[in-house]
């Protein structure tokens, strides 16, 4: 796994808001690598800082400490204009609510092409690229002259994806792209996303609170709680051996479409006071190949024991 090419590397990222007494650490200490061509998931509840990480990567929020490397080059802090433009080309974002994230007063043509404007690209080429992006997401180029309100939720999310795709990005941050959609349309959008990944060799950062979707689409998953990444592993090993109590609580809460199992379900509730971090400070430990856990010495021993037994 170590031989794979790293596309994005986040090291000790910290994002804070406010000053003085109101200082709030949305992300305390996040470190992870994303490899080329994979889908990396960040899962956590609302307020855990998962969206903040995504926004720090596309430079919406400044990082207060730590660094983010894209292809080995620093992308936080002040950058020359040309570099910022390149990054806009390479990193794009898909938003949560397709009803709210499209400009109601603009035609699809403009919405999709907006990122290309003012870059000295000839008008015909812009036109071509918009048509191509629309075709890629399964819409017809004729739709370009319509307004967003003429489309259904699933189609709007496709437009949102086309808008990201038109820049020819390598890396796409998808922030809860299917949470606002109906179940039947979710499947269509998920299929489209994996299809585009194969076709264009995209790398995704997939942010969601829904582990059942994550299991389906992600190669690796990081679990974040209150600004700390508590566990990170391959999807299968995370589901097979969840080590952190918070991960276990999340897994136990996934609704299963199986009435017999659901009747005997035992919910686990995560209580942060089960940790004793005052003296024994937690660290970021690799417990098995590619499986990372935030734990102190005592917890680490327990986790290793648990792994051996299973």
């Amino acid at each position: 796994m170590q031989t794979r090419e790293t596309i994005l590397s986040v090291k000790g990222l910290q994002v804070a808001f406010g000053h003085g007494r109101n200082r709030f650490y949305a992300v305390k200490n996040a470190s992870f690598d994303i490899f080329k061509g994979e889908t990396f998931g960040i899962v956590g509840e609302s307020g855990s800082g998962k969206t903040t990480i995504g926004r720090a990567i596309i430079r919406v929020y400044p990082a207060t400490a730590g660094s983010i490397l894209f292809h080995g080059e620093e992308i936080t802090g002040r950058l020359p204009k040309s570099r910022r433009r390149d990054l806009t080309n390479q990193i794009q974002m898909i938003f949560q609510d397709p009803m709210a994230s499209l400009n109601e007063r603009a035609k699809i043509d403009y919405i999709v092409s907006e990122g290309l404007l003012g870059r000295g690209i000839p008008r015909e080429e812009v036109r071509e690229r918009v048509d191509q992006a629309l075709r890629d997401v399964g819409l017809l180029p004729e739709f370009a002259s319509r307004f967003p309100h003429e489309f259904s939720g699933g189609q709007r999310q496709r437009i949102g994806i086309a808008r990201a795709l038109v820049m020819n990005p390598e890396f796409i941050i998808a922030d809860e792209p299917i949470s606002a959609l109906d179940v039947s349309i979710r499947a269509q959008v998920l299929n489209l996303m994996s299809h585009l990944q194969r076709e264009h060799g995209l790398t995704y950062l997939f942010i969601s609170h829904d582990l059942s979707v994550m299991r389906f689409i992600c190669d690796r998953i990081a679990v974040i709680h209150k600004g700390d990444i508590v566990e990170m592993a391959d999807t299968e090993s995370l589901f097979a051996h969840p080590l952190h109590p918070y991960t276990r609580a999340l897994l136990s809460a996934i609704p299963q479409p199986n009435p017999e199992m659901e009747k005997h379900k035992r919910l686990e509730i995560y209580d942060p006071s089960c940790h004793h971090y005052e003296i024994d400070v937690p660290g970021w430990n690799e417990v098995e190949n590619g499986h990372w856990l935030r734990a102190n010495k005592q917890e680490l021993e327990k986790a290793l024991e648990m792994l051996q037994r299973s």
Partner: protein
Amino acid sequence: MAHILSVRNLHVQFTLRGRKLHALRGIDLDVEDGESLAIVGESGSGKSVLNKNFIGLLDQNGSVTDGEIRYYGMGDKLRHYPGAGVDENGSYIDLAQFKKNEDWLRIRGSEICMIPQDPMTSLNPLKTIGWQIAEALMLHRGMKGKMAYEETIRILEDVRIDNPKRRYKQYPHELSGGMRQRVVIAIAMACNPRILICDEPTTALDVTIQAQVLHLLRELKEKYNLTIIFITHDLGVVANVADRVAVMYAGDIIEIGLVNEIFYDPRHPYTWALLSSLPQLGHRGEELYAIQGTPPNLFKEVRGDAFAARNPNALVIDSLQQPPYFDITPTHRAKTWLLDERAPKMEAPKQIGKIRSLGHPSAPADAGKEAEHADA
């Protein structure tokens, strides 16, 4: 069990820019006292419209054009009302004949109550949560002063809000999403209703909080013998809470049955499609089953089986004639020609067979729980 609500051949139409939209096309539904019924369907299938009929909150441009909604929960109390009557299930009142808001005030809240979808927007930000619960007590149960306060504290404890005396004085913005949803449930419970309608009670919530809220609703149902109607688009959530499931498509209930019958032995192609498109049933790296196309346009008259146009294996008759209900068991029936004896044998998609093993201890998803067991 006794019926508490009985819908007969209900048709609802909306007038939009001079055109008629046929939102409900002949619904038949019996709700039993003390059960929890889930109504599942895509957006636009009419599941919310159906439930708005029960509490008189249909939009201005909508009206019941045909059918009855018999409510049995009032006994003889309203026997002078125009819609009152007696049938084999007892005295009833026909809610479809209610016209005035004053009529509805006797039903809404104290008999049938609704929990709206989004707890973030359904509370008054200027009033303390205690006041908002006490208000329901004053209006619906005639309580005052100290009595209302004490009852409010009791209800807050009921919905598992810790430290209720302090919470009483807090404002909605001081609470998290899950807590707010509990407050909304508390307001509904303060009215002491017979039927609780939950319109997507958990879509705005996180998975962990969602599980807790569903657990709470189940607890309350046991404690107060509530009848709960869940409206949702996510079949994954339903398995946990429902006794029976009704699947709606294009303004009609196309399949209804006990929760086990719907999940383990679904018969309608639309139910198959809904279940197969759940990501829980998918395999990473493979295509997830997706329903193609869009629901039919209800401005036009639907001919035959409404799902036929999106069903790749539709029969010829599906596009000609609407199927009637076929009984599979006394509790399970579906509207599909596949159940006719002349129909060709059609197997349910293979994903459906996997449902039984989902979340089973041998499946990897639950290995963690096993480890936990060993730990304890």
